[in-house]
């Protein structure tokens, strides 16, 4: 009974059918079976946040979710929200503010920052820090990342940064 299990889901708006082993986590499924390598794998026990994706509209840790659990669900990765232009301004702000550095944490930082801005369009710096607290940046670029998110929030509200 450890044989592959059939699943159907949508990934970035496209219907996907696959056979997955029960133990395969969503991050590995996205990277290895679908070639969507923007979702990064860091700690694999929920600490670093590098694997953050959206499932049914809410951010989750892709390393703490089995691919079989996403049967019938809608998964969105950095490739999806990047291609749609949803986070184009946030990405530009990350470049402008030097919030990228090595880039390893960046896709998940963008997923998490966008999640905050969707729920709270006018966050203060403390709220930004709190919301991003589950995402590690190994270059310690935190201040620049907070700056970029704050600048994007201000710009989206029509205020200068």
């Amino acid at each position, binding site marked *: 009974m*450890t044989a592959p299990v059939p699943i159907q889901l949508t990934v970035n708006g496209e219907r996907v059918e696959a056979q997955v082993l029960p133990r395969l*986590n969503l991050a590995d499924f996205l990277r290895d079976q679908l070639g969507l390598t923007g979702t990064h794998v860091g700690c694999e026990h*929920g600490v670093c*946040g590098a694997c953050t994706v959206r499932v049914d509209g*809410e951010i989750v840790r892709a390393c*703490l*979710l089995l691919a079989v659990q996403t049967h019938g669900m809608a998964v969105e990765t950095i490739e999806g929200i990047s291609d749609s232009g949803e986070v184009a301004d946030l990405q530009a702000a990350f470049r402008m503010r030097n919030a990228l550095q090595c880039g390893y944490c960046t896709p998940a930082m963008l997923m998490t920052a966008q999640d905050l801005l969707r729920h709270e369009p006018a966050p203060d710096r403390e709220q930004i820090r709190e919301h991003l*607290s*589950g995402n590690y940046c190994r270059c310690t670029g935190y201040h620049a990342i907070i700056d970029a998110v704050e600048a994007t929030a201000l710009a989206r509200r029509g205020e200068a940064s």
Partner: protein
Amino acid sequence: MKASAFSYIKPSTVQETLALLAAHGEEAKLLSGGQSLMPALNLRLSAPEWLIDIGGLDDLRGISVSDGVLRIGAITRHVELLRSSEVADNAPLLAQAMAHVAHPAIRNKGTLGGNLAHADPASEMPACMVALDAVLVARNAKRERRIPATEFFTGVYETVLAPDEMLVAVEVPVAEVGQVHYFHEYCRRSGDYAIVGLAASAVVEGDRFADLRLGFFAVGDRPLLANAARELIGRSVDAAALAAAQAALEAELDPQEDQQASALMRRHMARQLLALCVATLLRRPDLEIRRSA
């Protein structure tokens, strides 16, 4: 690391789940939100033969209030508790504490029942349940039983749940008029497990505690309902009374030493939290004198 191989099954009813547990309980793990189970599997701390995914059991989801009891279904997610007006109105301690449970991406999946059944001694919710005198409702194929939170936790990752039992709900007495609460934890990063934490519920009448329940966490192998609270109930609290309560608390503690803190440091932090809690709830900033342990 990756999880070892297991078989996966997703029952659609509670009865079906209980039958599976009756058949495979010793070799099975229930998968709810998975936010504690998946790390344990990935680190190979746990290697069950079966994973029983209870994520589809909608009977076990939801928050309701009736007859003075706030009832929370076992697979209600953390984010639902955080956003619930029923929880904010009737158990504000839970709402406040939930903001300290992990991070948004984890709170979107993690469930209350899963958190309690996992029984991490550094976790916030077990201590809240002890402080609030909650009752945990467990079921197997034959019967349902109701377990006071104070009797539920038996050690590190250990509870009184039998292999064929599952947690189905939590019942929290609705906060009464005059009931106040306190929550604080020390941790390295917002959202991490606590180094030491305190979840407290109290009734204050005038300048005294009519009731005080202190739920300390990360100071032993399970959440601690501190007997030291008795030193502070029904009397005018002064520095001497507080010092006596702190001494009584120290005698109860059995903190572990780990990479984050020595046992001595945890004792000091627990004493400090007791003073902060009492000073805050009684609105007596004069009691919050910082002194070395």
